């Protein structure tokens, strides 16, 4: 189970500030269970975006947004809608957002933060990776995660060790910031590189304690708790 939670509306709307037509994709896998995606999540976001004056060109539920073959098959039928969209908003984990971004040449933004992989990392057939940092910045990086791919975890562009698109740690390894530069150039968003991003908040990486009380953390926790409470009540009522 990959656990995600919705980004704040302020943040989502800030991505779409200068845009009118939004193509929506929700994941029907893990995100369905988390209520961030699935039919419920899709409807919620669709309504809120309409309220905010946005035009929804399409709202698509895809079973597993980490599966690029599946995404390709579904999106093939929506070429016209995609052409008329300013950007795509994806309700899924960070892998799903990257998988979609990898297939399109318009901006692809995350609607959620990925916070935990719940003991079972799921299966993803692509090379996209997500570190569950809890502060998804794929909206500004062309849908490529610098955090999961830069050995220095840099958030403000390549270091001096980037050379002809390769990383200083391994001549075979692509410099992720070189990939981001190319992608941003392709989608006309090079100005994103001019923003200065603050250092990461490492507290977001650790699951908050209330999360540990939920089914997303461990099935056994949730199953045992009500039982104990019930028996406690029973014991008290017999006194």
């Amino acid at each position, binding site marked *: 189970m990959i656990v995600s939670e919705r980004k704040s509306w302020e943040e989502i709307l800030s991505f779409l500030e200068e845009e009118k037509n939004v193509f929506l994709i929700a994941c029907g896998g893990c995100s369905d269970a988390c209520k961030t995606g699935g039919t419920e999540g899709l409807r919620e976001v669709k309504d809120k975006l309409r309220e905010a004056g946005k035009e929804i060109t399409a709202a698509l539920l895809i079973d597993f947004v980490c599966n690029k073959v599946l995404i390709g098959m579904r999106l093939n039928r929506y070429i016209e809608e995609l052409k008329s969209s300013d950007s795509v908003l994806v309700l899924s984990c960070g892998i799903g957002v990257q998988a979609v971004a990898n297939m399109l040449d318009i901006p692809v933004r995350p609607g959620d933060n990925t916070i935990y992989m719940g003991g079972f990392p799921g299966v993803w057939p692509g090379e996209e990776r997500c570190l569950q940092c809890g502060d998804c910045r794929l909206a500004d990086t062309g849908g490529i995660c610098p955090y999961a791919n830069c050995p220095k975890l840099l958030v403000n562009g390549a270091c001096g*060790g980037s050379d002809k698109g390769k990383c200083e740690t391994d001549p075979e390894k692509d410099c992720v910031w070189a990939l981001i530069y190319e992608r941003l150039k392709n989608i006309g968003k090079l100005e994103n590189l001019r923003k*200065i991003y603050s250092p990461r908040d490492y507290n977001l990486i650790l699951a908050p304690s209330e999360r540990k009380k939920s089914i997303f953390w461990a099935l056994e926790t949730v199953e045992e708790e009500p039982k104990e409470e019930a028996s406690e009540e029973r014991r008290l009522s017999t006194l």
Partner: protein
Amino acid sequence: MKLKDLFKKGKFVITSEIGPPKGTNIEPMLEEVDLLKNKVDAINVTENQSSVMRLGSMAVCRLLKERGLEPVFQITCRDRNRLALQSDLISASVLGIENVLCLTGDHVVLGDHPQTKPVFDLDSIHLLKAARNLVNGYDMVENKLDGSPDFCLGAVVNPGADPLEPQIIKMEAKVEAGAEFFQTQAVYEVKKFEDLMKAAEHIKVPIMVGIVLLKSAGMARFMNANVAGVFVPDKLIKIMADASKEDRPRKSIEIAASLIKEMKGMCQGVHIMSLGWDKYVPSVLKAAKLI
């Protein structure tokens, strides 16, 4: 003395660089730096350069200060988190250090402790911002300081980077974050430096061209294969390859001096990285007619 005051006066600023030893034997290093006294404006002190563990930069900066030399404290994000970086900046200040060069730092896999945990809690831009904040009297999270440091902050840029555009964008961000001067990676191709200066025309911060003394043809080939954005043209490699061992320093001085003469008019200073050949730096400066 801060480098920015020299730039303000219109001086063509000259800096050199030393790498602290691996151990406590500081005498050879101090003898070498004494040769640079009154020849250069300041001396960069590298910090665990190439991720190889050595005597610390801050201690050596203080030693230079005591000998009447002006240090530039190089500080990287590789080995310390934001608490330690800010604390060390304050420590450097009370030890009299006034010039700081803020770097991201090489990755640990390039050094002699490749198993270590790389920190990189901040990057060079965050570090510049944090240092600027300290100068303004606050830490990174806006707590007020009881007495604040006063630094001239520097940053680096690589003219040989391919592509160059993201480097220029990052330069702009570094200036916004607080950089007051730039030192460049080693330049051997005048055209590349000219391209950088053209692309950075709108950046109103002094730029010092980086010069690395070529010690041999082997070293040149090594840099071409291993150092990002550094390219030594065949013509220069041939000069070094044809020179006898005794003649190499003379040739190296000639090459460096001619590069400086060609690029001097385009920029506001020169940063000479001698990689142990500190004793030849005065000859380079003389040959380049800078002293």
